[in-house]
């Protein structure tokens, strides 16, 4: 689906950095670019969308060349059919939610897609509001819907959830997955958040200093491959409290706070904010239906 091989010297905050990246992304996948800030993740999305020019390289989408510096091919952002959700919401302040979506329509397009997206992203109540009256999560939902209006096959998400609180984040992750599956998109997500990556993506590329360090499935990347048990939960350490001989670690899994008793040796490397994996191999977990 996407073949990308680009080379660019960037003026990053820590001086010059050479971005040299090769990506091969299959149709229908949700791929995450993971890495510290300034590693070049956003620049990759910007070059794929035509907002930034690589020094040299090639981008091919569905075997159609979008960029080829040797043949002087370079499609403008307008000619590349992609959806882009920016980190800052970038809704047009002079338009209502609905007008934002309608602005995105191409000249020949049928308006029905706007209704459909308003339905899917549950914006009916908000459609006549101006962006300034919306919360961060609502704004990003509108931005997601707007990016989908032209029915692109590729969706680029540049840390769309980083400014949101946890509950909002989880809700929006579900919207993104819903849209990704419904429209059979090929999606590239930039994210720092490991539990988010594990929940959402098929493949992860770890990027450091402009180079791809590793790539694989999220589990291959974020666990040491030693874990082999039935129950795996990912969460974030909220608090560690010392009790008599043991420690009580509070872990946020999704929206649930779970307390786990741990030994000194286990706690040693942990601190607040760490992403952890909780497994159990000694006992069999019991599963029961929750009565509504």
């Amino acid at each position: 689906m996407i073949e990308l091989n680009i080379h660019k010297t960037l003026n990053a905050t820590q001086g010059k950095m050479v971005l040299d990246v090769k990506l091969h992304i299959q149709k229908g996948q949700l791929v995450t670019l993971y890495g510290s800030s300034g590693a070049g993740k956003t620049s990759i999305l910007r070059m794929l969308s035509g907002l930034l020019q690589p020094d040299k390289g090639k981008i091919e989408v569905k075997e159609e060349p979008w960029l080829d510096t040797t043949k002087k091919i370079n499609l403008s952002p307008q000619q590349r059919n992609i959806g882009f959700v920016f980190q800052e919401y970038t809704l047009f302040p002079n338009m209502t939610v609905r007008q934002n979506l309608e602005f995105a329509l191409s000249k020949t397009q049928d308006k029905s897609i706007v209704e459909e997206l308003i339905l899917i992203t549950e914006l009916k109540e908000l459609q006549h509001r101006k962006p300034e009256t919306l919360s961060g999560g609502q704004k990003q939902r509108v931005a997601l819907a707007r990016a989908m209006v032209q029915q692109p096959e590729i969706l680029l998400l540049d840390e769309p959830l980083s400014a949101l609180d946890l509950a909002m984040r989880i809700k929006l992750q579900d919207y993104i997955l819903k849209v990704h599956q419904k429209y059979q998109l090929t999606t590239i997500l930039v994210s720092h958040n490991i539990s988010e990556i594990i929940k959402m993506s098929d493949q992860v590329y770890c990027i450091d200093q402009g180079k791809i360090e590793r790539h694989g499935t999220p589990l291959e990347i974020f666990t040491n491959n030693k874990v082999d048990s039935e129950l795996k939960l990912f969460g974030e350490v909220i608090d560690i409290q010392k009790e008599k001989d043991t420690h009580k670690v509070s872990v946020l899994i999704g929206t649930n706070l779970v307390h786990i008793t741990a030994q000194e040796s286990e706690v040693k490397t942990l601190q607040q904010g760490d992403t952890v994996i909780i497994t159990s191999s000694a006992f069999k977990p019991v599963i029961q239906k929750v009565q509504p």
Partner: protein
Amino acid sequence: MIDWDPLILTFKLALVTTIILLVISVPLAYWLAYSKSRIKPVIETLVSMPLVLPPTVLGFYLLMAFSPGNAFGSWLNEWLGIRLIFSFSGLVLGSILYSLPFMVHPIQSGLSSLSPSLLEASYVLGKSKRTTLFKILLPNIKPSLLTGIVLAFAHTIGEFGVVLMIGGNIPEKTKVASIAIYDEVEALNYGAANTYSLILFAITFIILLAVYLTNGGYLKRFWK
């Protein structure tokens, strides 16, 4: 009573100048806000020159350039039938140059204050630069546009030196209110000078007050 012609001429001049300036300044300010060209500092300087230059300097050079006594002026006169010296069109041209920074600067700084990702969001939605300018950028800098329009208008009402140099003092053609005031004082008609002055004072005060009220959001609060 006083002769109303100079006042009417003044407002006609200010109106024509402002409309033409708006058409010129939007593309110019757009270019200044987004271009990375090397000659940009030179253009920026030229646009700002009327802020510091004595109006008589500008007027003098325009007079020299358009005088039928030299090549360019006589070419204009013979081929296009335009006489820019001591005529209303000459006044308009002089005023456009003189008030240019008052229109360009607010629009330029309005555009620069918009987040660049707003443009990029529009581009990736497949919208051209032109559509983006008219549908996204300009509607979001309405206060800057209003400031530019009003400052250019008010500044044109207040000009004296350029008008005197290039237009002279021809009743009903180039004698604007600011020159009429000077004339009346010269003739020791302090009463008439005072009437003109008071009218100009009141009108410019009201215009500027209206801008500050609108841009400060006072009117909105008042109406609610």
